[in-house]
């Protein structure tokens, strides 16, 4: 597992080296700060996705939960509520959706793909109904600090991302919850027979994913200075891609948020580099698609060789 993460890191460094050779604009402080900032939203969503995928599930609803939590946040801010109330409300909105996903999977015994596919549609619809399809905007400077501010030279979204990753890494490696997530993903029945409350922890995993989506929604809303009901469309695919490139197995039971962060950075660097080089958006899609497929190909090939 460790060797694999190391490999992904080398991949990222090689990519950076290639871009450094190809364009003088890549390796500048401001560009690197741009990249981490642009990566932060996908990275935060992908952190939650990593929990779900390690538990051998999938969450297709993250993009819609981003939109839903975002419009809840936007509406409250616009109605004059302070951020200290609106932000927790948005987090609650995200966790709520995640909880429903989790209960459908654990108690309802629905396949995660189906449960979250349903939520993907419901949360998106709720966001559109709630806003009548229009973006909500007009927020205070104080709130917008989450996107525009910085601590020292670290931009605020990056700070949020780092905090999220520190907590996620701690949870996965230093808590019983983390142990159970890996165990459930590795062998759910054996974990149940070991007396672990499997349903509870599976539900919690989807709640974590919902929470992360809500955190991402807060950063995104501050960045756009607007909460859009159409925000986060297809971002579930970006999050899954970052997770998988980062070495988390779609079969469950193994992976790490550290890997996912590198995966998200690889995607961010790739997009940034392609922009800097003036590659058209069509070709960008091809390159990104190839990277995802090759990364997973490598993953499954390694697994075949091991067993």
């Amino acid at each position, binding site marked *: 597992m460790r060797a694999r993460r190391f490999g992904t890191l080398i991949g990222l460094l090689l990519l950076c080296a290639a871009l450094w050779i190809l364009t003088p604009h890549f390796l500048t402080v401001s560009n690197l700060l741009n990249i981490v900032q642009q990566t932060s939203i996908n990275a935060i969503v992908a952190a939650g996705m990593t929990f779900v995928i390690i538990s051998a599930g999938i969450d297709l609803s993250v993009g819609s939960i981003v939109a839903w939590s975002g419009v809840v946040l936007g509406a409250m801010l616009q109605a004059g509520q302070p951020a200290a109330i609106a932000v927790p409300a948005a987090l609650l909105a995200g966790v709520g959706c995640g909880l429903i996903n989790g209960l459908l999977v654990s108690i309802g015994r629905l396949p995660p793909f189906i449960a979250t596919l349903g939520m993907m549609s419901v949360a998106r619809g709720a966001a559109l109904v709630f806003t009548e399809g229009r973006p909500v905007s007009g927020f205070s400077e104080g709130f917008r600090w989450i996107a525009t501010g910085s601590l020292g030279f670290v931009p605020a979204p990056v700070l949020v991302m780092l905090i999220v990753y520190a907590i996620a890494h701690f949870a996965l490696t230093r808590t019983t919850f983390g142990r159970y997530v890996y165990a459930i993903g590795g062998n759910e029945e054996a974990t149940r027979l070991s007396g672990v409350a499997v349903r509870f922890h599976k539900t919690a995993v989807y709640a974590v994913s919902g929470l992360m989506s809500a955190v991402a929604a807060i950063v995104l809303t501050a960045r*756009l200075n607007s909460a859009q009901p159409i925000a986060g469309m297809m971002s579930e695919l970006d999050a899954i891609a970052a997770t998988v490139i980062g070495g988390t197995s779609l079969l469950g039971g193994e992976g790490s948020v550290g890997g996912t962060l590198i995966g998200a950075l690889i995607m961010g660097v790739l997009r*940034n580099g392609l922009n*800097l080089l003036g590659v*058209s958006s069509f070709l960008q899609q091809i390159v990104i698609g190839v990277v995802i497929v090759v990364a997973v190909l490598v993953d499954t090939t390694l697994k075949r060789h091991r067993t």
Partner: protein
Amino acid sequence: MRKYTVPAAIALACVALSCNRDTPAAGADKKKTVALVLKTLNHPFFVDMRRGAQEAADRLGVTLQVQAAEREIDVDKQMQIVENMLQTGIDALAITPSGSREIVSALVKAKAANVPILIVDTRLDPKAAADAGITAKTFIGSDNYEGGKLAGDYVIKVTNGKARIGVLEGIPGHETADSRLRGFRDAVAKSHGITIVASQPANWERDQGFNVFQNMLQAHHNIDTVFAASDLMALGAIEAIAAAGKTGTIKVVGFDALDDAKKAIAEGKMEASVAQFPYEMGKAAVESAVKVLAGESVPPDIMVKLEMITKSAGSR
């Protein structure tokens, strides 16, 4: 061994990327670089705009960099593109904002880098721009409100002031969609014989235009005129009309004058379409950018003409 497989994949991507690289901007010839950031490139409107811009750039001897998000509605991606292009040291930025308010945060960075901003096709939200202290050098576009009015006046003319209209709207909350719709409504409101019996969004898409209008026809058999805020939706409606066996009995008026729409007008399946001239917009954007870079003044609004394309008027 396993350590090197992922890097190999990345290296592959790098090769792909270096092959497809445009001519390097960093040249010794000191050619100025104009960036044109579009909403998307999978719509004929923006493809035409790029062609116009390229023509002007070649003529005036500047380098043109064109980038666009994968999807028209993805403001965040568009912002990232602006940020990334600023890193390459562009000299001027022409942009068709995917979100009138949202894009402002990215433009603040352009301003900080002293890159002049030109807005094309979709206006900035005046309040958001003013709050952030952003002033565009110019706006190049055609007035969507006027276009909507043009369509409304035309409908009054061809129906002698008597019509039952179904409207297909664009994405709600979209500046372009709202303006076209307002212009159209204001125009037909003058005529008492005209009623809008149904008005629903079909989100700029052809297949949604088909579905939404098919449902509309189910609910309102006596619709005799359609106004679609874009030709793609109008073309969808025409197919729905054909499916209902009513071709020729319902007048369809669209917007954008796409090639397919012009063909439908020539075949008599469609009544008319408001023509915008994205090619002209792209051309004017680069021409204005060059002027700004040369220190010349440009007017705050450069309005590109609008035209009603009908069977008798023919195409341009």
